Structure formats: C-alpha cells, structure tokens
C-alpha cells in the first residue's frame, strides 16, 4: 500500500488525531524518490493507533525498524519507522510531545523491539514512555544528569571525579607555557 | 627397597650400615622420592609444557616458542623463573591457610601416583600390591585440593569452578575403577608390575586385545582419566571462557605454577598407566632371549645383579624396557595434547551424562565380558608367565584370534571412514601461489 492509502486509512479510523502526510519538507526542490513520507499521530491516540498499525489486516506492520528521538528546540518527537514483512511496505510515524511535559504512551507492549529503543530515547532525549516494561537509562549510568542528545545539553566537566575532557595541548598559543623551540619529545 | 637396604648393611658401606636395615631403607625411600620429584617429575612436566605449546603453535599455523634457547627449549626454564619471580598475591578476604595448602594437596595427589608406576622391568620405586587403589585414592586427594583452592579464593567464579570439579572428579572415579577392573580380573593382581608381567610384547598379548570388552575398557579408562585430570574436552573446572579460569583464578606466581605442574604431570602419568595396564607396558620383543643369555634365565633383580657384577647389563635391560614404554607413551601424550586443540568443552550436565550413561555401563559390560572369557572353556584365560615367548594368536585358542581381529578391524573401519569423510580437496600445505606483497628492497 502506498503511504497515502495508509495515512488515509488511519485518518478514517482515528479522525483528526492523525496529521496529514508530509511528502516534501522542502517544497522548492523536487524530492528524490527515497525521502521519508511521514505523518504525525497525537500521543492521545498513539497506543490504539500502534495496535491498529500492527494487527489491521491491510497494514500488518509487524517489524518495527527503528525508534528515533528528535529534539528541534521547540518540541520532542519520537519517530517510529515501521515495516511489514508480509506486505513489504513501510511507513514513518511521528509522535510529538512538548518539552516541558514529555509524556507519551509506550509502544513496547505492541512491539517488543521498542523496549530497548524507547529506553535509549528516554536515556538520550528524556522522552518518558508510559506503560513501558522497565524504563531505565540503558546507555548512561543511572545517576547521570541531563539528556545528551538535547540541543540545549551542556556536557558536565566531570562525572564522579572522572574528568570528561582532556586539556587540548594544541590549543596553547605560541609564547604560552610551551615554546616551539623545545625539542619534540619521544624518539622523534 | 628392603633387599637393597639389607644388601647395603651386609656390604658394610661404612657410614650407612650403622643405621641398620630400617634406617637405610627410610633413607633410600627419601632419596628415591627426592630423585623422582626433582629429577623426573618436574622435568617431565616442564618438557610437557614445551611440547604442548609447540604442538598448539603448529596446529594453529604459528611457530610456538622459539625465542629462548635452541628450538625454544629454554622456555621451560623461562616459565619457571617467571613464575618464581612473580609476586604471588593472596586475596585479602581469602581463607589464608586453605589458600596456601591447596596447591600442595593437588601436587601431592599427582606425585602419589608416581610411586607405584613401573617405568621399566625393575624401575619401580615401591611395588605396592595395592597399586590401583593408591592411584584411585590419589584422584580424590586432588579433588580435595581443587575444592580447597576454589572455596578459599573467596571468588564466586572459583567457587563455581571448585563445585564443578567435585562433581566431575568424583563421578569419574567410578568409570576409572570400572575400566581397570577387567584388567585386574584378567591379571589377577592389583599391582601394576604384576599386571605388566602378565602381558607380552606383541599386541595380541596385550590386555587391550585380549577380548572386545577389554578393548572398550581401554577407551573407557582413557576418556575417564582425561576427565579425572580436567583435560579438554572435560576442562570445565578451569574453563577459561566461562569461569574466567575456574579454581585457579586468584592464584599467581609459583602457587599457580604448582597447579600447572600437577596438570602436566598428570597427563604423563595417565598415559603411562594406560600403556602399562592395557598396552603391554615395557615388554620388548627380545626380552626372553636377553634374560636367557645375560642373566642365565633368572629374572634380574637389582641386588642379584649387583652381587653378580652384572650392573651394566641390568642397567641396559631396564633402559630398553623404559625406551619401549616411552615409545608407546609419547604418541598417547601427543594424542592428549592434540585433543585439547581439537575438541570444544563439554557442558557440566553432559559431562555427568557421559559418565553415568555411557562410561560406567560400558565399564561394567567390559568386566562381565572379561569374566565370561575367564571361565568359558576354550576361550582361555591369560597365558601364564611373563611374555610367553613369540606365541601367535593362533595357538592361544580360536576365540582369542577373533577377539583380537575384531577390535583391530573396528579401529581400521573408524579411521578409514574418518579419512574418507575428510577427503575434501584441501590442497593443504602447497597453497596455490599467492604472492606475498612484492618484497622489493
């Protein structure tokens, strides 16, 4: 099924909770045929929409390819790339949440693959997925402050006494603590 | 040992004779055990490390140790010195006395078996007539050592390793006992020396080919002994990839060295025992003739030879015997080493299955069959006397001919089938000419 039919089918089922299909974000340039066609689903309906996407006879999106967290300074988005191994068609769905209240229903009960993917989105972007099996940080230590992939993230200088940067010896301007004349060390 | 002490006292060697027979024999025992441990067991274990690493290297397309000394032979000293120089750390929360005692128990167990192994016609430290029981007892002594080391290192992985080794070694003592039983029935005695004396030099005079049951018992013993000393495919207690190194994880320096020496010593010991009990020991073809014209028909003894001044012939006679024993043991050692670099490791529950479902029943079957051979008229018990000359299987009763040919045929079939199955055209050795990058100057 083409993305348009998929979007229309969902539109009929869920009404205006479904955004319209975005084909070419940059309308000026003709889009190469591979661009993602996506549409947004509002978090309120997302859980039912997910089950519908997976179990509807026409759609059968059993393979969740990838869950990506996005932050564009205004809102946080979770992008679900779905693929159907049976019908061999694919679609991209976006669920947007606001930055100050980043809660949305989790897709983990529908696709088990979302379990680790959503934990990573939570860990790196701070999107909270309700109904997730065990939402913990997956890559960063439990007591890490902040979510690194956010645009406004500032990396802390040290974590529990371990420095997270190394003094860039190149940055020294001539005349500062080193002078070019010093013989280069090592077995040059 | 006592005749020698008596001989020393009679000959009135000045300093020794004053001690009386008992004193001298104790002194002799100490001297022999010191010689055995340092002169024989340690070098054997050392050479084994070199042989193992060289074979491992070659099978894996690398050179193996060749840096230190001619052909890399000094790697034995290098390892030893390295281990001695390394600081042996005792973990803080370890159970110190147990931790320190464990390697000695393991090494002690390995040495115990050395005392009862006849390395030549007369080269046997003490010819105990309960030889096999001492050997099996040594096995459980080693288990105690391993459990001590596993438990006392206060490390979960070592404890797991220790627990595994208890299960493994104890449950493999049954098949070892079961496999040695038919040989004991056949030769009528528990002492290794008399077992060897009952056999002859020709394969059809070996206990191994006496009857199909004993043929199976040989392999049952070999596999069970491999498990006794934790060699692949049964090296589960110190499984590097699972338990980080099992019971000897926390050991370092010479303490670890002792586990090392014990393991390699054990490899040589079990190949000796296999050859002695099942494959005709140190018998060599011209044995009877030599005894006839060198010692006038009587079986040489140390004291007899010393008195009649035939020490040189005695030494030569034992040397030939020892040489044939080593000639049969070295291929077995190489097989054990090769097995380590060919087979993967068995899981702990499969290990138990093999012992209880396969090896023990086969051992019992072998015992029953050998007993049948002993009492059935015409099948004939073992020919009496040492190496009954050049007798051919024909004149040892018709049944014995079949029970010799059947196992040989089975072995030929297995090897042939494996060779046919691995006949894929590998063009090994001469790889098609791929030029290494142009070695221009």
């Amino acid at each position, binding site marked *: 099924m083409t993305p348009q039919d998929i979007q229309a089918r969902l539109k009929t089922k869920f009404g205006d909770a479904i955004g319209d299909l975005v084909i070419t*974000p*940059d309308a000026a*340039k003709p*889009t*190469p045929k*591979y*661009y*993602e066609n*996506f549409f947004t689903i509002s978090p309120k309906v997302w859980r039912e929409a997910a089950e519908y996407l997976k179990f509807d006879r026409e759609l059968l999106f059993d393979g*969740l*390819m*990838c869950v*990506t967290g*996005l932050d*564009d300074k205004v809102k946080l988005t979770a992008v679900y*790339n779905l693929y159907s*191994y049976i019908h061999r068609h694919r679609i991209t769905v976006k669920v947007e949440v606001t930055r100050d209240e980043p809660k949305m229903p989790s897709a983990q009960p529908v*696709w*088990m*693959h979302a379990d*680790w993917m959503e934990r*990573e989105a939570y860990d*790196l972007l701070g999107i909270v997925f309700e109904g997730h099996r065990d939402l913990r*940080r*997956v*890559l*960063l*230590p439990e007591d890490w402050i902040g979510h*690194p*992939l956010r645009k406004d993230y500032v990396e802390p200088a040290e974590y529990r006494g371990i420095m997270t940067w190394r003094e860039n010896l190149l940055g020294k301007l001539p005349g500062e603590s080193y002078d070019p004349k010093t013989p280069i060390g090592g077995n040059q | 040992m006592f005749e020698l002490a008596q001989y020393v006292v009679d000959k009135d060697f000045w300093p020794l004779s004053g001690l009386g027979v008992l004193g001298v024999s104790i002194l002799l025992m100490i001297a022999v055990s010191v010689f055995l441990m340092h002169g024989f067991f340690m070098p054997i274990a050392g050479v084994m490390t070199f042989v193992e690493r060289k074979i*491992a290297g070659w*099978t*894996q*397309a690398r050179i193996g140790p060749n840096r230190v000394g001619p052909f890399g032979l000094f790697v034995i000293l290098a390892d030893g010195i390295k281990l001695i120089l390394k600081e042996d750390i005792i973990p803080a929360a370890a159970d110190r006395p147990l931790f320190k005692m464990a390697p000695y128990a393991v090494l002690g167990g390995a040495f115990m078996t050395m005392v009862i192994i006849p390395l030549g016609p007369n080269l046997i430290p003490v010819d105990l007539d309960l030889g096999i029981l001492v050997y099996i007892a040594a096995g459980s002594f080693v288990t105690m050592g391993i459990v001590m080391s596993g438990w006392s290192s206060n490390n*979960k*992985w070592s404890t*797991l390793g220790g627990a595994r080794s208890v299960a493994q070694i104890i449950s493999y003592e049954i098949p070892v006992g079961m496999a040695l039983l038919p040989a004991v029935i056949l030769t009528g005695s528990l002492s290794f020396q008399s077992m060897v004396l009952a056999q002859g030099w020709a394969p059809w005079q070996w206990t191994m080919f006496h009857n199909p049951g004993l043929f199976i018992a040989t392999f049952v013993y070999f596999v069970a002994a491999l498990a006794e000393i934790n060699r692949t*495919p049964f090296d589960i207690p110190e*499984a590097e*990839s*699972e338990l*980080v190194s099992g019971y000897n994880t926390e050991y370092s320096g010479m303490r670890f060295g002792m586990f090392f020496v014990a393991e390699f010593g054990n490899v040589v010991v079990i190949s000796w025992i296999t050859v002695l009990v099942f494959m005709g020991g140190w018998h060599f073809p011209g044995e009877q003739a030599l005894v006839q014209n060198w010692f006038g028909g009587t079986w040489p003894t140390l004291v007899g030879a010393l008195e009649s001044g035939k020490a040189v012939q005695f030494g030569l006679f034992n040397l030939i015997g020892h040489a044939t024993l080593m000639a049969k043991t070295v291929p077995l050692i190489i097989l054990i080493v090769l097995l380590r*670099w060919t*087979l*993967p*490791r*068995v*899981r*702990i529950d*499969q290990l138990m299955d093999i012992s209880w479902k396969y090896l023990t029943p086969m051992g019992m079957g072998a015992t029953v069959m050998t007993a049948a051979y002993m009492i059935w008229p015409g099948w004939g018990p073992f020919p009496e006397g040492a190496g009954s000359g050049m007798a051919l299987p024909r004149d040892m009763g018709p049944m014995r001919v079949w029970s010799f040919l059947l196992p040989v045929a089975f072995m030929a079939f297995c090897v042939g089938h494996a060779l046919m*199955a*691995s006949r*894929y*055209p*590998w063009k*090994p050795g001469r790889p*098609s000419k*791929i*030029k290494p*990058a142009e070695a221009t100057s």
Partner: protein
Amino acid sequence: MTTALKTEEITLNMGPQHPSTHGVIRFILKTDGEIIYECVPDVGYLHRSIEKIGEKVEWQSFIPYTDRVDYLASMNSNWAYSLAVERLAGIEVPRRAEFLRVIVGELGRITSHLIGAGALALDIGAATPFTHAIRDREMVNDLFERICGARLTFSFVYPGGVAYDAPPGWIEDVLEFCDYFEPRIEQFNALITYNKIFVKRLAGVAVIDTETAIDYGLVGPNLRASGFRFDLRRDEPYSVYPELDFDVPVGRGEVGVLGDCWDRFKCRVDEMKESLKIVRQACRMLPTDSAHKAKVKKILKPPKGEVYVRSESARGEMGFYLISDGTQNSVRTKIRTGSFSAMGVFPKVARGMMIADLIAVIASLDIVAPEIDR
C-alpha cells in the same frame, strides 16, 4: 524452594571485564548454582555518543566515525552511511565504484563472520578454529591494506564512491584469495561445525523462532536462522545487487531445533560461501571505463529532508536515519544496529539456561559492544 535445605541464589556479575562477553557488556545474573534465573544485560561502557558527534561534524567527515560503530565490518557501516547520504543529497555513484563497494563490502562480511564463527568456537572451548579463522582474516586484511591503507578502520567508502581505486594486480589477488579460502571453509566445517560435542553444546539452545525474532527486531543471520528468508540485499535491493545472483542461506534445523545457536552459526558459515560467490562475480563484472568516485562538492549541503536507509551489514540491517536542514551539519544522525536489538532478547532467552549456554548464546548472536553502545 520447597526443600528444607536452605539454598540461596548467587548474584553473579558477568562482565564488563569477562573473557567472553565480546567487548565491555555486563550481565547481572541471578543463578541457583549453574541454572540462571534472571539475566539483566547492562550496556553503555563503550558509549561515545557518536550520534551527537554526527550533529557536530560535516557529512563527509562523519565517515571515520561510522568505522568505529562496527569495527569488525567497518566497510559495511561506511557503505550504509554513504548510501544514506547519497539518497539524501541525490548523488549518482559511477558503476565501477558500485562494484568496488560490493567486493569490499562482501570481503568485510567474510572477515566479520570469520571472527563471529571463530569466537563462538573459542567460547565453547576449541582454540584452533579461532586461530585458523584469524589467519584467513589476516589475508583479507592484507588486501584491504593494499587498497585503502588501513587494516581495521578503513574509512574507504565515501558518499559518491570509493576513496581510492584498486591498485594493479589487486583484483587478481582477490580472486586468488577466493580460490584459497573456499576449501578452508570446508576444513573449518570438518574441524568444528559437525563435531558431536560442538553440536551437543549448541543444538536446541536458545531457540528463537521467526515470530519472536521479528517481534524483538532481530535482523541478519539471527533472523534468517529461524528459517525466514529475508535479506535486504535481495528484498530491498540497493547498489548493483540485482545484477548479481546469490542465494540467501537460511537455518534448516539440521541438528537441533530450527532457530537454535547451531543454526545461527551455520547461517554465518554458509553466508561466507555466498559472499565468495558474490566477490567472484563482482571481480569479473568490474567495469574499467567509469571513475571510482563521483564529483562531490567539498562542503556537501544536501537539501532539507529526512531519510531512513538500511543496508545488509554483517550483523544484519544497519539503518541510518538522517535529517538535514540544508546546512553542512546534520540535524540528527540515528544509527540502528543489529546488535542493539539482539541485546533485548537476552532476558527472555536466558531464563532457565546454564552459564555455559549463556556464553554460547552471546557468541551465537554475534553481538559486538561498540555497535550496542555507539
């Protein structure tokens, strides 16, 4: 525990430094003796936040980082990223570059499977197959070193083509390697694949059927081992794969149950044979007229847009989700890798298993720490 004897669970810490967790991964095991009750994987020890660097670095300068995402098959990850950038920026790749990419990609797949299969044999206890695999891998490394100068992190496939053209005599040496390596796979099989102890250790262990595999997002050999014939090179063809004929090996449940550890191992070994076939065809069909790299502006500014492109790397589907807003830096570079999803399967599969089996499952799923943590 109904027995009167009071027994306690052991909480074992397997990793992050453990000889067979294939990099720094940690499994917190609750075991009763040998049987595992509960296995909780804990990753992140090798997290370099490559995705954040992707937003800071230009499009073409990100290539050296894709090497470090999956350093065992870095050719394939370079290729996956370049494919995504080409589709984003609409770059046409000359035919010779496409064929060079196929040769180098399939050789990369062979090296990765050699390590995967060798490491599984080593974790089960057999050291020789691993060393033989490494020796054959070194020969491919020599070929890579002659074409691109590096032996592990190649940075060879760029958006728009390949960094350097093949040196003279390189293609003949690749063909010669194929002739040399074909029988070596048979030797590997004779040595370990059908060995009874190896089979008993792997047959029927950690069975993952197709439905669970799809649900947990398993891809590549892990998915195909469950009998489901799905390969991106054939089902979502990219580059010149439609012109090459090769078949996709699938688990057949030869020794144990369909979809167990042994099938995953056998899938990888068979895939090596297929890759050899592909490399031979590509070497013969390599055109000599077209260039090895398309003209690409130094500072690449792809038009606004998003694209999710996936290609078949050694560990299955490696997907790049790239968002560009017309500048030279990407807004978001998401890397979807096979090992990360394979980690999710452990809690389900490891329950009731023995520790020795868990080691076998880790090696059979062929997970690699940098791919999980990125």
